[in-house]
């Protein structure tokens, strides 16, 4: 029987794991340890429910319900001064929990503080767009849609941004292989010539790692080397056997050596 390979996460895995090794956690601090964050958190928790809040490496992390994202970001922007959405994207947890985690990285220039707002949605759920609050979310959400296939409601122009419009699959999902799937392999052929040309062109033409045994112009056949572009069926001449009697290293003869004058 073939061994079962998981399909939901095809990323590279570590080949060796110590059975008894438990990964430590990046230290989390209470929100109260920073005055400004404590005040912001207090003000925020009055508006909507915050599931969890802690400090991690000097930045506040807020975990919220996905349907509150616009309300909370609006409060953070308008009342608390976090007016720059410097980054947002998603993390794929489909294999573990069947969910995506979406994070919004906010910056307040007056307070010099950074906050990360995180929420989770199920695979087929959509998230509300925050483009009306931050214009930068326009492109970030498009990128998130492109890379993960997360639908964004109320987005003005939800369209793939990095991949071509007719691309199949979402590349940053853990289930998408690093070298691309079948549609990626045949993308140009399908588009220019049509699917029926797949058989005519042949899969070996679309495989970057393919090595032809009859091609002596581009590949050397190890231990059966022939001159470049020679007839692949011809066997190479035998290499002369190594002379065992000759010394491996010639002794250095001082009398025959000559010192080059480098000062010239």
């Amino acid at each position: 029987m073939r061994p079962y390979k998981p399909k939901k996460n095809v990323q590279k895995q570590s080949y060796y794991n110590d059975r008894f090794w438990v990964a430590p956690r990046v230290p989390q601090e209470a929100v109260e340890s920073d005055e400004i964050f404590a005040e912001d958190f207090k003000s925020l928790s009055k508006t909507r429910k915050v599931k969890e809040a802690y400090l991690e490496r000097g930045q506040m992390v807020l975990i919220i319900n996905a349907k509150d994202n616009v309300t909370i970001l609006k409060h953070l922007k308008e009342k608390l001064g976090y007016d720059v959405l410097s980054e947002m994207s998603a993390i794929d947890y489909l294999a573990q929990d069947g969910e995506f985690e979406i994070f919004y990285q906010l910056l307040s220039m007056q307070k010099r503080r950074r906050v990360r707002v995180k929420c989770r949605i199920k695979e087929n759920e959509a998230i509300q767009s925050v483009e009306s609050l931050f214009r930068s979310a326009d492109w970030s959400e498009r990128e998130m849609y492109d890379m993960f296939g997360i639908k964004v409601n109320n987005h003005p122009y939800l369209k793939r941004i990095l991949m071509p419009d007719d691309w199949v699959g979402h590349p940053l999902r853990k289930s998408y292989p690093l070298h691309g799937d079948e549609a990626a392999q045949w993308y140009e052929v399908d588009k220019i010539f049509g699917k029926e040309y797949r058989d005519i062109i042949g899969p070996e033409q679309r495989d970057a790692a393919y090595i032809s045994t009859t091609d002596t112009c581009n590949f050397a056949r190890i231990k059966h080397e022939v001159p470049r572009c020679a007839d692949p069926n011809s066997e190479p001449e035998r290499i002369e056997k190594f002379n065992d009697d000759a010394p491996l290293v010639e002794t250095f003869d001082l009398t025959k050596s000559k010192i080059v004058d480098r000062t010239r």
Partner: protein
Amino acid sequence: MQQRNRLEPYFENLVFERDDNTMVINFGPQHPSAHGQLRLILEMDGEQVKKAVPDIGYLHRGMEKMGENMIYNEFLPTTDRMDYIAATSNNYAFALAVERLLGIEDKVPRRAKVIRMMLLELNRIISHLFWLATHALDVGAMSVFLYCFREREYAMDLMEDYCGARLTHSAVRIGGVPLDLPEGWLDHLNWFLSKLPEQIELYEGLLTKNRIWRMRLENVGVVPPEMAKSWACSGIMLRGSGIEYDIRKEEPYELYDEVDFDIPVTDRCDSYGRYLLYMEEMRQSIRILQQLIPMYKETEPYLMAHAPEYISAPKEDIMTQNYSLMQHFVLVTQGMRPPVGEVYVPTESPKGELGFFIRSEGEPYPYRLKIRAPSFWHTGILQDLLPGHYLADVVTIIGSTNIVFGEIDR
């Protein structure tokens, strides 16, 4: 979508024959002043842009995906290929993010920090010179290009003397730097720093009061402060709009809190203001570098952090001590395993805020690696910035946003 002739290009949302007298122009992706692979779909009314849709992705290599399939040290040279004009700033941003995730930021030796800062500021000068050269070339000032590339060559020679590479440096490692400065490098740097200010004056003499230059740049590409904030602009795009925020000053990393330098700001908001800032930032970089030279001489000769769990021991230890060799073997073959957690680390790259978001699940491979490249949003802002401008100004605006496609598409 199947078409009759599949080789004929098609554009989904575009109509070429329209009743309203507008014309649709496809600007790029192969255009000399598109700074790489930018495709702009411009709807023109005569000479004026009515609507602009930037189209990116022609240089997409999937670096985030690659990062998830590589151990941390393996990924570092890949970051060179993002902002290839200033490769060290990418290496450094990634190394700093991993160091902060590991919690060994304070263990990096002082000499390594000084060398990293020298490389970063040198890269900033290289990047700004390159920007000035290409921007002036786009606008039409050919000679500035030649002068700038001459000085850039001296700076690249310094980088080459240090790490052997001119464009893709990989000169920073997680936990320090691999090499000490070669002999005589500081003298060369000093010579370069003494020559550069008069060269900057030369460029300014050619451009600052030049009537054509001012006509092409003044009141072109005006980014109001609200728009800059809303589009998450950073770096000179932000400071050119009158908002004083430099991550080196506000959230200092390395030894930026120990050196004395100013953050130039202007509230002109236009391309000309940004040009002035680039010139001033080069001077400030020179100032930082001049302060770093005496700082280097006071440091002790340690280059890599001592954190045996994550960072290999120095080469002598590996060759002489059994345990160091074992650890080195594990770190090279399996990779370091950072603690579970996530970190977002912003740095001030020559283009703006370059940040790395890393989610670690305790595996040698990052679970999620998101690169926050400043040029991505500086390209996005074009769709709000270009309408109303003339076609000739499009080139100026693309130039003054200083975008690099290696980091937009990643």
